[in-house]
């Protein structure tokens, strides 16, 4: 654990990973687009709109994965005070917010033709909107302090409080009546999606994950550079 807390060592590892992740993103998204738009069937009920699933569902998964990253980094920062964990948490929130926004917008574009509405206040949609606000709140709070240590701590506490929302999002469709349908892939008893539609879905999900990884590494690098510059300016004004 402590080995990875060393920023130089972490960045060396991350930079070695970066070109592979970028290549994986291009390949997976490319083949996902090809299969999703051209080589997969329409749905027996939803027709062609089922293709929105290939950009909507992976975005929702990444929205959850982003918050998990944020929460674990926040925990590591609060308990072990790893400065790198603070950077990872700060890097995760705008990325998670981007994927949450994609999920919300593509969901609205899918809901209007199929359900007959862009938006409803059901438990699933509302809890995902809350997730977006948690991300935005975390971004605002971490930058609201002059002292980055205090900002990081306040943001980490908010991130951990928001963890309650994760099971609510996941199980909202099982616990309450919602307009949103229950889970199709991550459910007991196996997937209810035809293999011909599963393939583009998983390719896209892999591509999204690679994009997530590339963005996370680049943002950690940016934030690390920012820290070093701040350190320098402080030492210059002290002198």
């Amino acid at each position, binding site marked *: 654990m402590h080995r990875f807390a060393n920023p130089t060592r972490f960045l060396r590892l991350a930079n070695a990973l970066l070109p592979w992740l970028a290549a994986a993103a291009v390949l997976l998204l490319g083949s996902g687009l090809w299969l999703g738009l051209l080589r997969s069937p329409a749905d027996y009920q939803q027709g062609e709109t089922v293709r929105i699933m290939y950009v909507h569902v992976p975005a929702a998964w990444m929205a959850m994965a982003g918050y998990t990253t944020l929460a674990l980094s926040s925990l590591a920062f609060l308990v072990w005070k790893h400065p790198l964990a603070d*950077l990872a948490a700060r890097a995760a929130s705008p990325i998670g917010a981007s994927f949450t926004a*994609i999920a919300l917008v*593509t969901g609205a574009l899918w809901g209007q033709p199929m359900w007959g509405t862009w938006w409803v206040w059901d438990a699933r949609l509302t809890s995902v909107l809350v997730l977006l606000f948690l991300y935005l709140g975390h971004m605002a709070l971490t930058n609201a302090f002059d002292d980055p240590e205090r900002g990081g701590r306040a943001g980490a506490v908010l991130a951990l409080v928001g963890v309650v929302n994760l099971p609510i999002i996941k199980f909202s469709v099982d616990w309450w009546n919602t307009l949103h349908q229950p889970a199709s892939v991550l459910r007991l008893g196996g997937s209810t999606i035809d293999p011909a539609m599963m393939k583009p879905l998983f390719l896209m999900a892999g591509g999204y994950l690679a994009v997530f990884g590339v963005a996370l590494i680049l943002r950690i690098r940016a934030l690390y550079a920012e820290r070093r510059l701040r*350190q*320098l300016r402080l030492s210059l004004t002290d002198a």
Partner: protein
Amino acid sequence: MSEFFAMGGYAGFIWPSYAVAFGVMAGLLLWAWRTARQGEAEVEHLRAVGLDPRRRQDAGVDVP
């Protein structure tokens, strides 16, 4: 071909969702790449002129 773009009459919903998804991801990657490159270039510049922030850091306590 035009049948493909029509998407069974749902073109107005399907194409915008792909545009939003790929547009947001492209914007995110571009922003992440530019902020990383700019920040690192600035650190590199200061190191070149002999004000290495990391060396100063090493002299003190283990600050991030």
